[in-house]
């Protein structure tokens, strides 16, 4: 799972155009990194592309931090597997 966390960090960094090391796992990406809500949707689109996870748009409201993205990815993976 640590590998997935790293992959997600790397993907998010590319989408929001920041150095991946500069992303704090608990930092609010919208308020602290100036990510707009549609760029937040692009993160869900990235998860769809990379892992085939059709994350519902309602989940966007739960996403504030990198930790949230990792959690939602794991939830959706479990849902898909199970």
């Amino acid at each position, binding site marked *: 799972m640590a590998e997935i966390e790293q992959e997600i960090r790397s993907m998010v960094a*590319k989408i929001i155009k920041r150095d991946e090391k500069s992303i704090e796992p608990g930092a609010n990406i919208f308020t602290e990194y100036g990510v707009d*809500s549609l760029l937040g*949707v*692009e993160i869900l689109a*990235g998860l*769809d*592309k*990379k892992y085939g996870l*059709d994350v519902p748009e309602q989940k966007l409201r739960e996403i504030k931090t990198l930790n949230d993205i990792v959690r939602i990815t794991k939830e959706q993976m479990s849902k898909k597997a199970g």
Partner: protein
Amino acid sequence: MMSQGTSVYWRKLIRIDDPVQENYLKEFKSPLEIFRPFFYFIINLICKFYLNIRVFGLENIPKDLPYIIAPNHVSALDQTMVSYAIGSKRRNQMYTLAVKHFYDRFFPRIFMKIAANVMRIDSEKDFFPAIRAAVKVIKLGKMIYINPEGTRSETGELLPFRAGVGMLAVETGAPIVPVHIHGTYQSMPPGKIFPKPSNVTVSFGEPIYMDGYIKRKQNEMAYDIYKSVTDELLKRILSLKVRNENL
């Protein structure tokens, strides 16, 4: 690149491939529409003798529907000025997204239903439902009026443009007509309910066609393409603004 081809997800979100019922738009037509010719007769007099309106660039409006009309937004007069400028034939083909805090007030709602085909939205909470409604308008071959700033400017200055209008254009393929409205803020800024005499200018720019942007979808992140459409729209509206302010 990791996020290539992400447009697939966006297309699912806005349900671009869902069929649209032919009668969908009837919902946004009001019986009050019968007063529209008389309303615009009065607006015509107000525009000519009170607001001293000048209209430029009507030749830039595409001959074929559908397309997106994208003006700046500084006053409650804006939509009516654009509707007046485009003329009755086009006006009746145009659908406008109206924010609910405005639409839900009795007199503004009556006014809007007479003036235009309006679709009530909550721009913050209902972003995707609003975009889905706009998609349907375009798929039914009509014109959609959208403020790229997403809300009205309280200062008269342009606000940052949101990428939503770019997404709508790229995913439907509809061209965007950039529009700059000048003078409505001076006439009736937010908070005022009666216009003051002013010099209003409405300028239509050359349409932004989507072919080149659509080709980029295979190789680039969808958001970046939407954003570049929106950036181009901002550039063109700024150029119209400079011209309008120096007339």
